[in-house]
């Protein structure tokens, strides 16, 4: 099934910008603050899409409770970009499901349902674990990466650090664990020192999307530049 949505992704692969051309009456749904620019005839409305149950699910999924609806009162364009540098990709859902990590979702068309799925991460110490959104239905989905977006086919088993998982197909089994081949002493040290505390082990057959940069190493780098809290 091909997309009915007219769109273009430019400035790839490092500062990708999604431009959607909306016909009069067409709607598109986006993550808050993703809009970079838009034509005059496009109306923005923030709301709780899908009712309270879905909203709570989205809260657990780590995405904010709010979904922005952009409706074209007159035909026009909307451009979207995430906060981080990286790529944006279009994924066509056709009565199918895709799992996305928190922060990767940016835009979807009508016909797509988003809900939260707690990925069963072990422990909160790493700060993130694996927090997933489930996108299903029939329609267009646009998701982002921090850094490059690398698509891979898993055929048997593959291990990915949780910070680098962007999306994966439903056909795969996955579990969140500490690095399997790590010695115990190493596990404890790594856990506390911001290293590969948690990984996702994918098993089976299916596609995964990983990103070439992650937020935790970036937070470590940016730490000394943050303002110091004044002691009063």
């Amino acid at each position, binding site marked *: 099934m091909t997309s009915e949505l007219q769109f273009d992704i430019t400035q790839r*692969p*490092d500062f990708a910008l999604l431009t959607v051309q909306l016909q009069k009456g067409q709607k598109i749904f986006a993550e808050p603050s993703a809009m970079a620019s838009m034509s005059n005839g496009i109306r923005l409305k923030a709301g709780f899409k899908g009712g309270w149950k879905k909203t709570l699910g989205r809260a657990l999924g780590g995405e904010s409770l709010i979904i922005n609806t952009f409706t074209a009162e007159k035909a026009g364009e909307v451009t979207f970009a995430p906060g981080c*540098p*990286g*790529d944006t990709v279009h994924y066509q859902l056709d009565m199918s499901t895709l799992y996305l990590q928190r922060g990767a979702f940016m835009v979807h068309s009508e016909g797509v349902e988003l809900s939260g799925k707690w990925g069963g991460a072990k422990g909160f110490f790493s700060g993130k674990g694996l927090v997933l959104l489930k996108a299903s239905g029939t329609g267009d989905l646009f998701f982002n990466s921090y*850094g*490059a977006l*690398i698509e*891979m086919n898993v055929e048997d*088993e*593959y*291990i*990915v*650090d949780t910070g*680098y998982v962007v999306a994966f197909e439903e056909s795969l089994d996955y579990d969140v664990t500490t*690095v*399997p*081949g*790590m*010695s115990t*002493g*190493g596990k404890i*040290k*790594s856990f506390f*020192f*911001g*290293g*590969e505390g948690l990984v996702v*082990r994918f098993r089976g057959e299916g596609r995964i999307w*990983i990103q*070439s*940069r*992650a937020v*935790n*190493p*970036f937070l*470590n*780098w*940016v*730490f*000394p*530049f*943050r*303002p*110091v*809290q004044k002691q009063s």
Partner: protein
Amino acid sequence: MNFKIDCRPAAAVLNLSLDPGETITCEVGAMIAMTAGITVETTSHKRGKGGLLKGLKRMFAGENFFLNHFTARHDNQTLMLGPQLMGDIVHHDLDGTLIVQGSSWLASDEGVELDASFQGLGKAIFSGESVFWLKCSGRGDLFLSSFGAIYEVDVDGEFTVDTGHIVAFEDTLDFRIGKASRSLIGSFLGGEGLVCKFSGTGKLYCQSHNPPSFGQMLGPKLRAR
């Protein structure tokens, strides 16, 4: 060790193929993905040396220097590594000594000795952040990362680089920290801070962008620590 650098020049990753028994060392946090037949050992600073305390000091100073050593235990093992910042990765065939800016060292094999106590360049005070330098010596594969595009300069004579733009340089080069312009006021107010004037003959790796400049622009907009 077979390697391939993909997603250049701005979001580069290092793809390695390891034979059974082969080990690669990188900083903790650099692993993106791997096959299941690899074991990992974490040490601080260097295997057997340095100790936990030195590493802890570095961690609270905002610099992690814990190392992960990945060893393949089976055939057909692959490992994907990536640095902290957007930018490039380059391979250097080490045979001698290369002085590497601390956060630009990505990975090296067992033939490369790492010494993080190199003080030759002191601290780049004016750029507001202290930088540590890693002395890499021996023979083996060394992988460097950059913030920005990497460009190589074969210095033969003299060359000036803003200190935040240095990725690595051969120790055959002499260097002198100085001011960019003739007057100290001009230099400091001119925003260039300290520059490094290299002389002699040797290879210099530079990066097109300056991490402290970027950090200082973004920092004030962030939540306090």
